[in-house]
């Protein structure tokens, strides 16, 4: 973890709100993407960002190891997202196929300065990736998101999930294989 984040965490633990704000600024986009991978809805993902950081603030003093801070935040974000998804399912709010890439995301995607062909290609890629991620069992999904989206090492993921590195390796391998198969005809 960067020295900057360690210093900010130490200050935030003493109640320094400015330091906490900097932590939010550094991690908010990664947390959003993590949340979005689990619930592909921009409003829900942003709510998860808020929930994660409010929870994080309330847990700050209980964080003993600064080294595992980033892992702790991503684990918290994934747990918030999974809990929310469960609640949504209970409410029987199902995300229709059209909502897999909601209108607001379409707008974001179309803002990119790319040719229309590239734009269509990226939307197609997002749909494929989203469909695979959605179908993965929880542990494979977490391993894939934490490794290839949040950039955690296998050792960090093992620590985050409380399982052996071998379990992370095999889950990650299976998840990537499913993604690879789904992308085989892409491009």
């Amino acid at each position, binding site marked *: 973890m960067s020295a900057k984040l360690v210093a900010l965490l130490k200050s935030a633990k003493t109640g320094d709100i400015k330091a906490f704000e900097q932590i939010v*600024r550094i991690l*908010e*986009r990664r947390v*959003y993407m993590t949340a979005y991978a689990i619930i592909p809805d*921009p409003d829900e993902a942003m709510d998860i960002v808020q929930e994660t*950081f*409010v929870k994080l603030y309330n847990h700050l003093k209980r964080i003993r190891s600064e080294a595992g801070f980033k892992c702790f935040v991503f684990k918290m974000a994934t747990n918030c997202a999974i809990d929310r998804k469960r609640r949504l399912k209970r409410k029987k709010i199902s995300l229709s196929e059209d909502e897999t890439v909601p209108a607001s995301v379409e707008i974001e995607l179309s803002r990119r300065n790319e040719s229309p062909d590239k734009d269509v290609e990226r939307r197609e890629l*997002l749909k494929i990736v989203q469909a695979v991620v959605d179908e993965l069992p929880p542990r494979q999904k977490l391993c894939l998101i934490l490794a290839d989206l949040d950039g955690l090492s296998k050792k960090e993921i093992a620590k985050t999930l409380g399982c052996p590195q071998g379990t992370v390796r095999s889950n990650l391998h299976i998840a990537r294989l499913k*993604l690879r198969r789904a992308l085989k005809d892409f491009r």
Partner: protein
Amino acid sequence: MPKAYPDFEETAERYLDGELTPDEKKRFLGRARKDEELSRMLKEMKLAKDSMRIYEDVLPGAAKFNSARKRILSAVS
């Protein structure tokens, strides 16, 4: 799984995750580049790993993050 290189996929994942030593990397790439099937598999594996970056496309604009941050800070202070 390639018969001539049974642990190819495992090594390829370690390569893509940046876990190989410079020597291992050199040996691995040397073998992978010589074989058409291995090269193709490596490309597919890299695409799968890189495809997760597509989520960067769904990031909302700075204004949405600014409002969310304000709400977070007002909730904790």
